[in-house]
C-alpha cells in the first residue's frame, strides 16, 4: 500500500516537473509584492520584482557608483546644476513602442504628480533640499533636467531602487482612467501574471536592448537574459523555503545564515553569502542620562569582540566593518578598515571613568528573519555582561521597534539600516538634528557640514578625505556601533547558474538553466 502510494505520488510529481520548460526558474520571495507600480507601493521584494521589468535613465553599478542605463550618456553642466541625458538608440517598450524623450517627460510628470504617490517625490520637489526646477526634451533622444543647486547625489537619487530606479514607463502602464494597470517598461522581462499571495510571473522580453557590458553589474551591465520565464513564488517561511530548495520546488531563495553549511552538503543545492550595503548596528540614545556619557558608549564598544560577534551572526562569513562607508564601496580604504579594538580591560577602565554602577541597559531587538538583530543582541548582551555591564534584552515586534526608533525612545537598539550605496547618503541616514528628527542618532553640526560637503562636491579625492574625517569622528563619538554590512545568505539549485542576488534582492537576468 505504502509503496503503491509512493509510486502514485512520484508519478504525479514527475508529471508536474515535466511541464516546466527548460529555461524557467522559480524564485522564492519571503512576502508577496505590494504592487507592480515602481516606487509607489513597495518594499524590497516589490523592488526586486519590478526592477526585472522596468529601467530608469541611470542605475547603480555593483560598487555603488551610478552608470547610465536607458541613457547612453549623461552630461553635467559646469555649475553642476544641469544634467543632460542622451537616450540609447533602439530601446523599445514591452508593447513595442520605441523609447523617446516624450516617454521620459511623461514618466517624470507622472512621478511629480502628488496623485501618483511616488515615494521619492519629496526628494526632488525641494522639500528635502533638492529641487528639480525644469525638465525639458530638446529632441527625441535628449532630456535635460535643471536643479536649484549643484548636488553630488542627484543621479544617485534617480537610481535608488526604492524609488523604482525612477523607471521610465510607457503610458500603457495606466488604465484609461489613469489608474495603475501593469508595468509596461523596457526591462529584460515583461509582466506575466500576479496571483496575490501566491506568485508573480515574468517572461523574457524578446525585443530587449541591453546596456553595454559582458556581465551583470548591479542594475547595469549585460542584462539580456537566457531565461524564458521566472516565477516569483511567495514562501513566507524560511524553513519551508529551505525545504523547497531541497525538493527542487524553488530554484533561488534567500536562506538563513545558519542553513548555508547544511545546504552546501546537499547534492542539489549551492549556498553562499552575498554582500550588501545594509548596515547592522547598535544604536545608542545619546540623550539617555546613562548613554549620554561618551565614556560609557566607548566602554561598550571596547567590550564587544566584533569579529567574534560578526562571525557568530553570519556563520563565519561576514566581514566586520565599523564605518558608514560600505565595504563594497569604492570609497572603502585603509582608514575605514580601522575599527574598534576588543579590549575588556579598557572597557572596565572606561566604565569606572564613566561612573557606571550597574544600572540596567536595555537593548531593543526584533526577531525578523534575515536580519541579525536578535542574535547580535544576545551575543552583545553576553559580551557586555562579561565586563560588568548590566545588559538586558527587550524583544519587540518590528513595527513597535520602528516606532521606538522613530521617536528615539530607547537606550540601545540592535538595528539594521537599509542599503545606501553612496557613503554620503549612508552617513546622512543616521546623522542629523535630533530636535526635528528624533530618529537620528548622531547630532553634531560639524558632522552635518561635512556630509553636506560630500553631497555637493563631485571630486572623488575630496570626497574620500571627507569620508575619512567622518570615520575618525564617528569612532571617537561612538553615537552608534556599526558592526558589519549585510552579508545575505542565498541559495540556488545546481540546475541554475548566475542567479546571484544583488543588494539583498533577487536578480536573475544573468541566470540560466544548465541541467535538470
Amino acid at each position, binding site marked *: 500500500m505504502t509503496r503503491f502510494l*509512493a509510486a502514485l505520488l512520484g508519478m*504525479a510529481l514527475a508529471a*508536474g516537473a515535466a511541464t516546466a520548460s527548460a529555461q524557467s526558474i522559480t524564485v522564492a520571495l519571503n512576502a508577496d509584492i505590494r504592487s507592480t507600480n515602481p516606487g509607489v507601493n513597495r518594499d524590497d521584494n516589490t523592488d526586486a520584482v519590478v526592477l526585472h521589468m522596468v529601467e530608469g535613465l541611470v542605475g547603480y553599478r555593483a560598487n555603488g557608483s551610478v552608470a547610465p542605463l536607458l541613457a547612453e550618456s549623461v552630461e553635467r553642466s559646469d555649475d553642476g546644476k544641469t544634467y543632460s541625458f542622451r537616450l540609447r538608440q533602439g530601446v523599445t517598450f514591452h508593447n513595442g513602442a520605441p523609447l523617446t524623450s516624450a516617454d521620459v517627460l511623461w514618466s517624470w510628470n507622472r512621478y511629480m504628480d502628488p496623485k501618483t504617490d511616488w515615494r521619492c517625490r519629496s526628494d526632488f520637489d525641494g522639500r528635502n533640499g533638492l529641487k528639480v526646477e525644469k525638465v525639458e526634451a530638446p529632441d527625441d533622444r535628449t532630456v535635460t533636467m535643471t536643479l536649484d543647486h549643484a548636488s553630488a547625489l542627484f543621479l544617485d537619487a534617480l537610481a535608488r531602487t526604492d524609488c523604482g530606479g525612477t523607471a521610465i514607463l510607457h503610458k500603457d502602464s495606466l488604465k484609461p482612467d489613469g489608474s495603475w494597470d501593469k508595468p509596461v517598461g523596457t526591462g529584460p522581462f515583461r509582466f506575466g501574471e500576479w496571483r*496575490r499571495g*501566491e506568485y508573480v510571473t515574468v517572461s523574457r522580453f524578446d525585443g530587449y536592448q541591453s546596456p553595454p557590458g559582458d556581465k551583470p553589474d548591479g542594475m547595469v551591465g549585460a542584462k539580456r537574459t537566457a531565461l524564458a520565464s521566472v516565477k516569483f513564488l511567495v514562501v513566507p517561511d524560511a524553513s519551508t523555503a529551505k525545504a523547497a530548495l531541497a525538493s527542487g*520546488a524553488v530554484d533561488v531563495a534567500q536562506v538563513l545564515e545558519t542553513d548555508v553549511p547544511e545546504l552546501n552538503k546537499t547534492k542539489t543545492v549551492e549556498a553562499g553569502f552575498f554582500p550588501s550595503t545594509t548596515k547592522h548596528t547598535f544604536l545608542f540614545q545619546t540623550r539617555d542620562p546613562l548613554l549620554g556619557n561618551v565614556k560609557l558608549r566607548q566602554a561598550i564598544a571596547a567590550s564587544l569582540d566584533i569579529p567574534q560577534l560578526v562571525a557568530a551572526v553570519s556563520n563565519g562569513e561576514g566581514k566586520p566593518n565599523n564605518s558608514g562607508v560600505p565595504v563594497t564601496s569604492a570609497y572603502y580604504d585603509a582608514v575605514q578598515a580601522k575599527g574598534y579594538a576588543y579590549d575588556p580591560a579598557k572597557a572596565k577602565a572606561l566604565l569606572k571613568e564613566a561612573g557606571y554602577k550597574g544600572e540596567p541597559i536595555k537593548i531593543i531587538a526584533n526577531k525578523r528573519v534575515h536580519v541579525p538583530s536578535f542574535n547580535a543582541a544576545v551575543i552583545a548582551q553576553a559580551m557586555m555582561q562579561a565586563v560588568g555591564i548590566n545588559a538586558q534584552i527587550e524583544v519587540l*515586534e518590528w*513595527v*513597535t521597534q520602528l516606532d521606538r526608533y522613530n521617536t528615539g525612545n530607547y537606550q540601545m537598539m540592535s538595528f539594521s539600516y537599509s542599503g545606501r550605496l553612496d557613503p554620503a547618503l549612508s552617513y546622512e541616514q543616521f546623522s542629523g538634528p535630533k530636535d526635528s528628527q528624533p530618529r537620528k542618532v548622531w547630532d553634531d553640526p560639524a558632522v552635518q557640514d561635512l556630509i553636506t560637503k560630500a553631497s555637493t562636491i563631485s571630486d572623488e579625492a575630496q570626497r574620500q578625505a571627507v569620508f575619512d574625517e567622518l570615520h575618525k569622528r564617528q569612532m571617537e563619538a561612538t553615537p552608534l556601533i556599526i558592526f558589519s554590512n549585510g552579508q545575505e545568505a542565498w541559495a540556488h539549485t545546481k540546475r541554475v547558474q548566475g542567479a546571484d542576488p544583488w543588494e539583498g534582492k533577487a536578480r536573475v537576468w544573468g541566470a540560466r538553466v544548465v541541467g535538470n
Partner: protein
Amino acid sequence: MLHFVFKRIAMAVPTLLIMAVTVFVLIRLIPGDPAALMLGDLATPASLADLRERLGLDQSLPVQFGIWFGNVLRGDFGISITSSQPVLPLVLDRFWISARVVLIAVLLASLFAVPAGMIAAWRQNSGTDLFLVGTATLLYSIPTFWLGLLLLLLFGLELNWLPVVGYVSFSEDPRAALLYIVMPVMTLFLHEMGVLIRMSRASTLEVLRLDYITHARAKGLSETAVLWRHAFKNAFGPTWTLIGLVLGNLLGGIAVVETVFTIPGLGRLLVDAIFARDYPVIQGCLLFVAFVYVAVNLVVDLLYPVFDPRVTAE
C-alpha cells in the same frame, strides 16, 4: 423557520456591532504606525506626512471609524494599506483557500472520529476503547504546528512524497492542488479527530445508558442496528454542535497551519496584516471571521433538529 432565521440574524447584529467597535479600537491601541512601517528607516517627515494623508491616518479616530463603518454598511471594507487591494475580495479569496482545507479536514475527521468514538463508547473500558481514547488524547495533545512540522519532515523531506511548499489552486491543476493540500489537511484532520473522537465517545456513552437503547436491545435488534439506528443520531447531536464550533473557530484560526505550509489563507492574511498594521485588512478579516462564526453556528442550529426532532427551530 424563516422567522427563526431572521431572529437569529437580528440577534447577531449587536454582536457584530460590538465587535466592529472593539476591533477598531483594539487595533489602534497597538503601537506602531502603518505609514512608518511602509517607509521603514527610509522615511522622511515629508514622505511620512504624504503617506499618512493618503491612508487617511491624519483624521481623528472617531472620524476614521465613522468613515470606515459607513463604508462597511455599504459593503465597502476599504483598501488594503500594504497591497492597495480592496479588502472584501481579498478576504473572500483567502477565505476560500482556508475554507477548502478546513472543510476537507473537518469532514474527514468527522467521518472517522464519529464512528470511532461510538465504537469506543460501545466497548467502554475494553482494549479497543483504551486504544481509541489514548490515540485521541494523544492527537489532541500535540500542537498543530508541531504536528505539521513533523509531517513536513517525514513526508516532505525524508520520504519526499509530497511537495513541501506553495499552493496550487484547484482551478489551475486539480491533481497538483490535491497534493499540495494533503499535509495541511492531514495536520488538521489528525488534531480535530482527537477532539471529535472524545466528544463522540462521551455523547454516545450518555446515550447508551438510556432506556431506549435497552429497549432496542430488548426488541431483539442486533448491536449494529442498536448503534446505528438508535445511538447514532441521538449521540451525534452534541458532536454536531462541536463540529460547528470547530468549523467556526478554524475558519478564522488556522494561521498556524497556514504558516507552516505556506498556504495563502485567511489566517495568514490576518497575521501578516497585524504585523503590517494594515488596519483595513485586520478590521475586514476579524469582522468577516466573526460573521462566519455566527453564520456557521446558525446553520448548525438550523440543522440540529435533523438529529433531534425535540429541538424545533423556533
